[in-house]
């Protein structure tokens, strides 16, 4: 992959899939400083790993792998890239403004979900994030590297906990 292609593809993917990266970041890091740090780390890792993309998987699957691997290796509060702070922040990501009641309700639910996900052990967080984004058990198994049936067993348990947490919060 040439340098120009590399940069072009990176920008195109960011235009399309920034939301995916933000979800991973917010599921693994709490608070603006940690989220900025992890967001920068994820973007940098995507940029550095892009030449290895072999097109045998969907871009979203590939991006999830890179983002989740980075998030799992990231240590809270480590701030190893301090000098990059201020250069790019998660607050630079904008969602299209939608003032409808439905959108507001969705935002509230998603905030609850982030809190519930962050309370889970890291491996389980990865499973939930993929499940919520509509990945099939087979696709989740491919991303995580465990068998499809195991994904099912783990998710069944997590789904119950998640539903209970969000339900309680709503009540």
């Amino acid at each position, binding site marked *: 992959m040439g340098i120009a292609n590399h940069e072009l593809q990176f920008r195109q993917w960011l235009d399309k899939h920034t939301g995916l990266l*933000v979800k991973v970041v917010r599921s693994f890091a709490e608070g603006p400083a940690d989220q900025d740090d992890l967001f920068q780390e994820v973007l940098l890792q995507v*940029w*550095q790993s892009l030449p290895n993309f072999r097109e045998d998987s969907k871009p979203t699957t590939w991006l999830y*792998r890179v983002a989740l691997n980075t998030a799992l290796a990231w*240590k809270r509060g480590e701030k190893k890239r301090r000098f990059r702070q201020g250069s790019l922040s998660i607050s630079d990501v904008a969602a299209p403004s939608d003032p409808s009641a439905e959108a507001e309700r969705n935002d509230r639910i998603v905030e609850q979900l982030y809190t519930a996900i962050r309370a889970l052990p*890291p491996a389980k967080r990865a499973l939930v994030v993929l499940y919520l984004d509509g990945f099939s058990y087979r696709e989740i198994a491919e991303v995580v590297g465990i068998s499809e049936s195991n994904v099912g067993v783990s998710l069944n348990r997590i789904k119950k906990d998640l539903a209970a947490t969000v339900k309680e919060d709503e009540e």
Partner: protein
Amino acid sequence: MNNLLDRLQKAWQSQSCQELKIDPAQLLTVGRLERRIILLSEIVVILILLLVGILMLLWSLRDIDQEWPWLIYSGSDAWVIGFILFNQWRQRRHVPHYEEPLLAHVEWSIKDIEHRTWLERNRLWWYLLPIALGCMIPPIITFAMECRTAAADGSTGPWAERFALVVISVFAFLFALLVTEGVFAAIFYAVHRVLKNGERIANEKRRQQLQALRALRESLLNTEEQHT
């Protein structure tokens, strides 16, 4: 429960359309700069070692009969450069693939940390000892040769003069040896202490990383065991 989960999925997926308001060019610049700094630091270390090694080689070749002991330094330098290059080549072959499945990446990270710990633990053999021996052995041989020459020069004179020359040569040898080796030993001890402190901090960090990674691997694998 299924209805609730569907609603959660719908709400989650409604957040997918987000875009970056600013150009990531600044981040890319920093990314490229980081790569260059790492590459540059490796090149600088290798160049310094290469330069000193070549200078020592030229010094030895200038008067090979007298200065051949300094070839030992060039040899030890070549060993260290060779090891750094080999390690760089190995690291480039075993780069982390972040696009691999999570479990495979966790396994890779554990092996990588174990390898780095092993490398640090054996630093004495790869870096410190070869350089230390390369610096300390040539002066010993050179002084010994000087003493032997001085003693041999006086072998034709009266016995008292010959005896005095041998004694002076031996003392000169021991004095020079003590001073030179003492200076080298002090430098290497100071370097060792500094590295040891850094190593202790790095080891603690690595221990925590390993612990977290092993727990992660366990949690991914335990699901499998419980199910089977």
